[in-house]
């Protein structure tokens, strides 16, 4: 997937300024940065929720699975009903087969008949991701997927996402947890005030600040300071 020169303004404020990056098949790309950096705006444009004022995205929205930060599913419907609804809306060729596949993939077959409102945050997020994967998209966007989860749920979620990537799905995710980015991402994109400051591996980011930082988080903070943020 190629993103070229994406710019977005909200009135006078520039939310994204000429952002470009690439992501290969099966690659895990983390978008990190301070609050208000433009992470969600970037993912929203790539996912087709927002229109960019300038720039282009190589993949049309129908080829990109979108998983918002908060579970965008109906709490009064069951797991299977949610999946079936979105499979029909996404015009999947065989909605029932898609539902079956996602129940298998998320490990929620036993909970298929349960209302979403009765599930734990982790299981809700798995359904949220499953809805994003119903159309079997080559690219999956996840906006802070683990922010509301406890460590155990987070670990299970990452097992699931890593499984997707190993199957060839390109995964782009935003996160506040830079440790998570270091652990799971093949590459990180550092955004601040709408500008893409860095694109590379976590090791390259640490090397960028001199390589003597205590850990990746310290290197990240030092990097931002060095760039005036």
């Amino acid at each position, binding site marked *: 997937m190629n993103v070229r020169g994406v710019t977005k303004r909200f009135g006078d404020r520039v939310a994204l300024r000429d952002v470009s990056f690439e992501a290969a098949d099966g690659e895990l790309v983390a978008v990190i940065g301070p609050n208000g950096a433009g992470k969600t705006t970037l993912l929203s444009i790539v996912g087709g929720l927002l229109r960019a004022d300038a720039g282009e995205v190589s993949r049309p929205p129908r080829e990109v699975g979108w998983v918002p930060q908060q579970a965008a599913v109906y709490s009064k419907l069951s797991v299977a009903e949610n999946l079936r*609804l979105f499979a029909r809306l996404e015009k999947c060729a065989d909605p029932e087969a898609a539902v079956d596949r996602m129940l298998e993939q998320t490990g929620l077959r036993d909970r298929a008949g349960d209302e979403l409102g009765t599930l734990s945050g982790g299981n809700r997020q798995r359904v949220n991701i499953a809805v994003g994967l119903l159309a079997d998209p080559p690219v999956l966007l996840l906006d802070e997927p683990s922010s509301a989860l406890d460590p155990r749920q987070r670990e299970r979620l990452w097992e699931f996402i890593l499984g997707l990537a190993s199957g060839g799905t390109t995964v782009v995710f935003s996160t506040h947890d830079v440790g998570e980015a270091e652990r799971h991402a093949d590459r990180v994109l550092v955004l601040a005030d709408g500008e893409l400051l860095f694109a590379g591996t976590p090791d390259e980011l640490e090397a960028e600040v001199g390589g003597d930082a205590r850990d990746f988080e310290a290197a990240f903070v030092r990097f931002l300071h060095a760039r005036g943020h």
Partner: protein
Amino acid sequence: MRWLLLKDLQILRRSPLLVALLLAYGGLVGALLGFAVQRDDVKPKVAFLNEVPSSAVGIKIGSQQIDASKYANRLFESVDPIRVKTRAEAIDTVRRGDAIAALIIPPDLTRRLQSVISLAGTGAPPTVEVLYNEENPLKTQAVESRIKARLADANKAISQKLTQISAGYLGILLHGGEFSLLGQKFSVLGLQRTRDVVQQTLRRLPNDAPQRADLERVANFAQLAIDNLDLSKPVLASIGEPLHVKRTVVAGKHVSANAFYIALAASVTLMIIGLFLGGGMLALEREEHAFGRLVRGPVSRWELLVEKVLLGAIAALAATLVELVVISLFDDLRWGRIAGWMAALLIGGLAFGAVGTAFGALTRDVRATTLLAILVALPFAFLALIPSGVVAGWVYDIVRIVSAIFPFKPALQALNAGLNDADPGLARPLAHLAILAVAYTAIARAGLRRFA
């Protein structure tokens, strides 16, 4: 769109309390209105205490005796009397709510009536007493109005009887005849025959007879009296009912108050349910964070809006239909006009659903949508009920303009036309509602630009 509609109906089905409330709302409003505007043949219960001794029910007018109880019965024509024996029992019956009022005929009623008729005294006028339970001002007003109307009927009947008796005496005075007094029968000559006798006598008298001048004066007086007393009968007849009313409708067809209230209740239910469902279910898409996921591909914003407008209309139609069916148990519903009022329900529901979606799109929150719906809907409903002629002309013009921008008034007109064949007919309000439905859907679409 159908999958979205099915999803919303599924969500509603999973909220049985909400669905029950929505349906119960229509049914409850229908039942309440049914009790309030029940058929005319259902009479309210009124306690009745007659303290007039049975030996004193008659009133004497000249040589005739009339039965006052016959006229008191007029008071019962529109109420269901509960006979009680004492004043305390009457009060207790009203306090307990077994009767909505009590009517007490005091023991001296016929005596006072006799006094008034015979012009014999200056004492208190004959008075009947009515006791009300004031816990419900509307109920009191309704009963008071019925009793006053029946009292006016009784007064009129007594007056007509008096007029009839007086006219009888005038007839005897004019034409002569038999007259009874104190058990004795008298033959009265009458003015016409008096005049004839005098004129025959005059014809027999010589022209220079000294009695001629006096007899001619008597004949002239008799003729004058005959001419004027002949006029007295219509004058007397007019005393009982001096003013008559001729009713001519120059604008709008006549619709009974009950029938109008039914259209009004149906409009209120249609409005509340349409606004709540249309707006609430749209705002729910945002609260469930599903809006962004839906409109990024699978569903367009227009499709989403039209689906919510339809949902609001269907729910409003269903709840109002329940209400009308419940009302039909109490009052006559014109099922023969079902096509007309179903069209009014459907187009009205669409208009209210569209307003609801506009509210939902602007507030972006279910509770705020509901609050806004109540805050906006009620003033518009009250505005629509202001009749012409009670405010200054320019104020009424403003009221008309403001009412025209909200669907309540055209919905009320359409339902009134559909249910009661009232003016201005169906076509104009339905067209008005359709325009409002489109306009508010467009406003909602504009609101969706900052919805996600």
